């Protein structure tokens, strides 16, 4: 549609949904139906709404989030696998005036980086952490991660994950909530409009906790990986609601804000 035609069509109307300013025009390279895109957009919108685009630094590691720097219109640091929380701590300690967020997948946050994730939380570092839990390693080809559900088939658990071999799924948010350090820990999902709105609120709250200097906030977001789950995007959404949520219940787990 031409600009003129669009203008005519939308005369007397207001834009109620558009691309946030903190994203540039680059197309995401995520797979169709992947929730990373929704979550990236929510973070960008929140940055816009809080007016912190100019002094926010994001950090995202290896995995599907490795390209974060390509589409966010903010400064971004790309560290080693698992080290995101420690890198965010380094940035924040050097420059407490910056807003720093860490964007980590479940392999990153809950497996190779557990040590770093845990201690950033326990120190109550004044950073905002997004933990995107899609129950497997997406980028490398759908291998088991520590958050893979029991009996879930992945490329490294072809017969399904068995507790006797790999233990049960790790519940990072609950685990970290046992600590005295963190300020806010919540688990959210983005499979429908209601959950998306709630996730947005949680993201905003998590950033506010940082801007107000109140400490460590973690937003875990259950995320779909339709390709590696072998499902179409609509079915993948249903899986979160019907299966994943049972193991990882939604809602605030800790709130000392």
């Amino acid at each position, binding site marked *: *549609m031409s600009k003129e035609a669009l203008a005519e069509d939308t005369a007397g109307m*207001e834009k109620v949904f558009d*691309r946030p300013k903190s994203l540039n025009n680059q197309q*995401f390279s995520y797979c169709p139906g992947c929730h990373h895109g929704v979550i990236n957009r929510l973070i960008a919108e929140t940055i816009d709404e809080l007016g912190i685009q100019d002094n926010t630094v994001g950090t995202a590691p290896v995995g599907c989030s490795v390209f974060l720097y390509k589409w966010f219109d903010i400064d971004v640091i790309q560290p080693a696998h698992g080290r995101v929380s420690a890198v965010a701590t380094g940035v924040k300690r050097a420059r407490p005036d910056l807003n720093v967020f860490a964007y980590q997948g479940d392999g990153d946050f809950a497996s190779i980086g557990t040590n770093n994730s845990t201690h950033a939380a326990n120190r109550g570092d004044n950073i905002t952490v997004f933990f995107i839990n899609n129950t497997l390693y997406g980028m490398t080809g759908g291998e088991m991660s520590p958050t893979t559900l029991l009996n879930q088939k992945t490329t490294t658990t072809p017969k399904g994950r068995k507790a006797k071999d790999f233990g049960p799924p790790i519940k990072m948010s609950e685990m970290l909530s046992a600590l005295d350090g963190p300020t806010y820990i919540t688990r959210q999902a983005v499979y*429908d*409009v209601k959950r998306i709105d709630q996730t947005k609120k949680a993201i905003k709250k998590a950033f506010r906790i940082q801007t107000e200097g109140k400490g460590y906030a973690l937003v875990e977001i259950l995320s779909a990986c339709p390709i590696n789950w072998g499902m179409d*995007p609509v079915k993948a959404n249903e899986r979160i609601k019907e299966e994943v949520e049972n193991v990882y219940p939604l809602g605030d787990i800790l709130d000392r804000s």
Partner: protein
Amino acid sequence: MPRGKVSVHEERCKGCGLCIEACPQGVLSFSGDFNSSGYDYVTVDNPEDCVGCGFCGKVCPDVALTVYKKQKEGV
């Protein structure tokens, strides 16, 4: 005159269909055509029914939609 309008950025759309599922008014559908990336992109099928709720935009993982809504009278 519809209460809302949705515009699809066809080249950004990856045809995941989540917006079709989310739209309460049945405004959107697959186009049956392919964009330059080879995706069957979404198109606006029933523009008259759009209420400008923005649900489609919210669930879209590729920020491929812009949504407009008629301003309330007297505002």
